[in-house]
């Protein structure tokens, strides 16, 4: 086979694979609702404590083993911390930052989201396995960044 023909086959297959790849990512994003956390609400980052719902952070049960967790992030703490939920709980996290950029991550799950000052971020996670989950900040936020963590106990 000559070079031109081989090159044509190679590029057709390669671009074909990329297109299939795009279709799968698109299907998961739009049809299965697996898109990345992208909430668009905003808040005054200097008035978080006075603005609902962050004036009263905490966990609330909305029935049917569904929970809403309103959480603030600041250097170097999650408020509230040490949360407990029952096995199978579907928790919607509503978060914002009171100072610099933070990131929230729960190893062992796919929960991973940037939490930036001025923006309200939302992400939902179902906890099907009992255990103590580590909740950590994964965006550098200052000298105590490595000390910014809490836990979620599922039992």
């Amino acid at each position, binding site marked *: 086979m000559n070079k031109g023909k081989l090159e044509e086959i190679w590029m057709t297959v390669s671009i074909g694979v990329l297109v299939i790849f795009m279709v799968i990512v698109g299907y998961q994003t739009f049809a299965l609702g697996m898109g*990345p*956390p992208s909430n668009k609400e905003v808040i005054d980052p200097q008035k978080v404590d006075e603005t609902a719902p962050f004036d009263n952070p905490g966990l609330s049960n909305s029935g049917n083993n569904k929970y809403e967790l309103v959480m603030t992030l600041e250097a170097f703490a999650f408020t509230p911390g040490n949360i407990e939920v029952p096995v199978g709980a579907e928790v919607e996290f509503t978060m914002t930052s009171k100072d610099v*950029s933070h990131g929230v991550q*729960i190893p*062992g799950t796919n929960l991973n989201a940037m939490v*930036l000052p001025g923006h309200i971020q939302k992400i939902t996670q179902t906890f099907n396995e009992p255990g103590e989950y*580590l909740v950590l900040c994964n965006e550098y936020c200052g000298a105590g960044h490595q000390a910014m963590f809490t836990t979620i106990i599922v039992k």
Partner: protein
Amino acid sequence: MEQAIDFKGRIKSKLGVNPQDATISLTYFTISFATLLIGGILGLIQGLERAGLYQLPAGFNYYQVLSAHGLLLLVVFTATFTMGYQLANLSHSFDGLLPKVRKMVWIGIVLKLIGVVLSVTTIVLGEASVLYTFYPPLAAHPIFYVGLVFLVLGIWAVSFGVMINYRYWRKQHPSQTTPILAFFAMGVFVLWFFASLGVTIEVFMIIPWVLGWIETINVMVTRTLFWWFGHTLVNIWYLVATSAWYVIVPKIIGGKHFNEKLIRLVIILLVVLNIPGGFHHQIIDPAISISIKFLHVFMSLSIAVPSLMTAFAMFYVLEKAGRNKGGKGLFGWLKKLPWGDVRFLAPMIAMISFIPGGAGGIVNTSNQMNQVIHNTMWVVGHFHITVGVSVVLTFFGICYWLIPHLSKRQLTPRMNKIGVIQTWIWTIGMAIMAGSMHLAGLIGDPRRTSDTTYAGHESALSWLPYEFVFATGATLLMIGVIIQVYAVFNMMFFAPKGTTEFPVAEPEEDQPKVPMWTERWGLWAIVLLAVVAMAYVIPIVDMIVNAPPGSPPIRTW
């Protein structure tokens, strides 16, 4: 001096880089490898700290070391090497730089050095532990940002110089296409100029804010402008590396370079498509809609197309050279390649590592998978394989012919052997370190985090074995850095006098004529801006129109 035949088969009066331009390139390499030594030591310190094997002395912290490591290696080492190498290529292609361009380049060197000294001093003093990304509202000392302005001005001085020289040559040779290495250099500096616009606007938003002239800043806009620059920068290094893959490597293995039309098409695509790739750093950000993010999956993946063209072209060139030397069977040609020649071995391993590197990049740019690995050690492993191997090993390989060529010395068999050993140490060190970083990231180990077990949590304890492996890899890499720095300065000042070839491959026989339309850089700049507009106008307007009240400067270290 030796005689040489250039791309058009015309006899050149002399071969090589003009002596005045050689001084420029050697100056850049001196800065570059001095920086590599410092940056490498800082890297080792982090590796050991992260594994809990070493504690920093009082008054210093992990994030300060990390800020310096990132800035020195990503913005100084690679940038100065690139300039030294690209200007040598240009001088070689054009029979010397124009005197006024030479002046602009020297001004660029001085501006860049001023910038580095200002920014690094603030980091050393503990006034700018803001990492390579310096995301507002983290606010460093104003001098840190002033240093960045000088750095950018230094880049612009050289970029404009290259563009002026390129235009001058085109005017003098209206019926010819430029030599391929000069075309690469033009692509590199055009992309560099447009990439730096993003960070320039960002820094000019930050300076009045840290000085207190304006009270608050738009966090999302600055973040987006940073990634306009921050990711494109690493792709500039990749474009620089491909210039050696396409044009230098074929000559070293005794082959010819691939069809120049395809090479030029790859360069143009890498230049025009590149900038929006930065958006995949923001896949899990708030304030950007899911449909915009999906558009950016597409825009980031489009950069894979020229890379796949490169993969085809390089394997074709390698196989053909191997078969011409008598390689038989499906893989017999591989054995015929000069594996004992560091000028080939280093860029060859660099190219091979771009296969997993590129595949990892596709993971990073895909919405759902990005969410799994975002801000974990996976990402650190990814850029140590791409920048740390694909780019840096190519750069190291270039040193073994370019530095003795410039210093009018020889590459001795002994130095070649040292280079081969260095290449293997580097390869093994990076394979161990980047490999374990990828694995640790998949099980959640966060990046950019000082040593901690999160109060002995079992997830964090499961990362510890991998962190010991990072430290082992980092130690091997430090040995590699020392050998490389020794080799560079030996070839610069102490190797036996003589001549070393500047290896530029010739095209294959019966190649189609190189199309003149590829020379239309004005048009490519417009296409680049159109692609940038497509990617950025909607999200940035949205971030400004629907902006929350801004953030004041905050210092948390």
